[in-house]
């Protein structure tokens, strides 16, 4: 059974990964021989300088999902490379590093620093974090997306994946801009902007006022976007948004995803990514499918 997938020149043993910001401390809590079975890991987004993140509360449960406004808390790229990257490399699983610059220049600096590091398979450009004090995200503007992808592609020794926002009128326009600018893949979706109010105190529940909605609640939205994008562009899609189990993941693959990431559901069931992988294999076996590429985009729609 062939499960391996490619993004640009990077090869991943299978299509199952974890979404940025939803998986960590594997070295302490996980059986690494199990983590190693995944197709890739995508760690929390790293920025050029350390960020302390947003004031708490940062998360709240919502119906079948959650809001988060972490604010990309991270130690900055230098500390990341020095301290975390080697822990991750020890797991011996392909790594897709998610980066976010607050300017084109910062994206380039991040890329250059990672060019010098070892054990990285691809870059994911987070163009879509809704929890920073920006009015317009890069991924809400096709020109900005195009320009940034082009610049990073010129510099990067790794395949480059653009992570897109669902908070747009037509995500296919942005995806096409990324593809035409040379991206090797796109990741979708990041979170939908949302809010909750505590009626007792009359205050927003989140310290940041608004946050990003994720989890099973948004899965139908994510699936539609993956389906629409897959109709329009040829580069591989890393799909995420509410995936809890193999059936969910298969829906995304049938809609056209090359890889699938478990995000929020890691918090509910840390075993979910492996369950997804096993479930995909079981489905392929039952349906006598030899190669995952036969499933990719196989939805039968008029």
């Amino acid at each position: 059974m062939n499960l391996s997938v490619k993004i640009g020149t990077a090869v991943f043993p299978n299509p199952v990964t974890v979404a940025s910001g939803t998986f960590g401390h594997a070295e302490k809590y996980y059986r690494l021989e199990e983590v190693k079975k995944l197709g890739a890991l995508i760690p929390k987004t790293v920025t050029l300088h350390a960020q302390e993140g947003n004031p708490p509360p940062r998360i709240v449960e919502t119906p079948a999902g959650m809001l988060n406004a972490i604010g990309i808390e991270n130690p900055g790229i230098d500390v990341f490379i020095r301290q975390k990257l080697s822990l991750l490399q020890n797991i011996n699983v392909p790594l897709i590093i998610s980066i976010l610059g607050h300017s084109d220049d910062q994206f380039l600096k991040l890329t250059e620093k990672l060019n010098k590091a070892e054990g990285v398979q691809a870059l994911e450009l987070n163009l879509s974090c809704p929890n920073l004090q920006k009015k317009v995200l890069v991924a809400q503007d096709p020109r900005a997306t195009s320009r940034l992808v082009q610049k990073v592609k010129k510099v990067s020794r790794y395949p480059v994946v653009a992570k897109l926002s669902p908070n747009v009128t037509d995500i296919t326009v942005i995806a096409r801009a990324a593809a035409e600018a040379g991206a090797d893949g796109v990741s979708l979706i990041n979170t939908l902007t949302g809010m909750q109010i505590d009626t007792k105190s009359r205050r927003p529940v989140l310290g940041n006022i608004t946050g990003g909605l994720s989890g099973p609640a948004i899965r139908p939205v994510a699936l539609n976007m993956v389906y629409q994008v897959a109709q329009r562009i040829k580069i591989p899609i890393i799909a995420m948004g509410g995936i809890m189990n193999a059936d969910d993941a298969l829906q995304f693959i049938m809609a056209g995803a090359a890889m699938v990431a478990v995000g929020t559901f890691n918090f509910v069931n840390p075993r979910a990514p492996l369950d997804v992988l096993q479930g995909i294999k079981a489905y392929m076996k039952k349906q006598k499918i030899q190669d995952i590429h036969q499933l990719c985009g196989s939805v039968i729609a008029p």
Partner: protein
Amino acid sequence: MHKIQQTYTVLSNKKVCPRYYHLSLDGGKLPQNIYPGQFVHIRVREGLEPFFRRPFSVFRARKTVDILYDVVGQGTEILSSKGKGDRLDVLGPLGNHFALPDKNIRQVVMIAGGIGVAPFLIFSDYLKSHKAEKTLLYGGRTKAHVFDFKPFVRNGCDVHVATEDGGAGIKGRVSRLFSKIRKDPESTVIYTCGPKPMMAAVQDFARKHRLPGQASCEEVMACGLGACLGCSTKTHSGYKTVCYDGPVFDLQEICF
């Protein structure tokens, strides 16, 4: 995939006072690995409602793993409906733990507000062989929040109770019991767990008298594993995750 994700069987789940339940899990080898102050993260039922797991301090870890909990919402409501033989998906033990007091300590003061008492029984189990005087100051809202403190007494604790309505112990907040604390920075250490305003009062008191101490904090949690950075709390050295960097922090570190 997880070293620490297991399904455990409920051995018993009983009301110990009008407000609190005591749940015992057949913890397999888990109890040996638990230190006082650590918590378990429980999926109260399959499905998406409630969505997150629910964190509970370990109340005791001998052969079984026990928690003491207050029914405050949907998650704890569902938990209270569990009976012998039911199975629960548990992550744990998680978080850091109380630092054991040095040998020179002569009074260990545990200051608990309401259900914040939970981590102190296992702590008193660990303190059994310690020579210090062990004092539990317990503040509850009403008599309905007061349960049988014999296990603490058996562990050698002096137990003092205050309730806001005077239904049990003395009437008033737990701060009315602070007189039981020896104000010697060299030989007294404070551990506290409870509502923020109470812990803030303990912090003030400890600061004033230069008493060292630790506090166990709460925040809403998603992963419980330090992965999501969602449970961060403000400390004087920046945001810290309650689930991974905590739940136990230096008493003066926390910005209540």
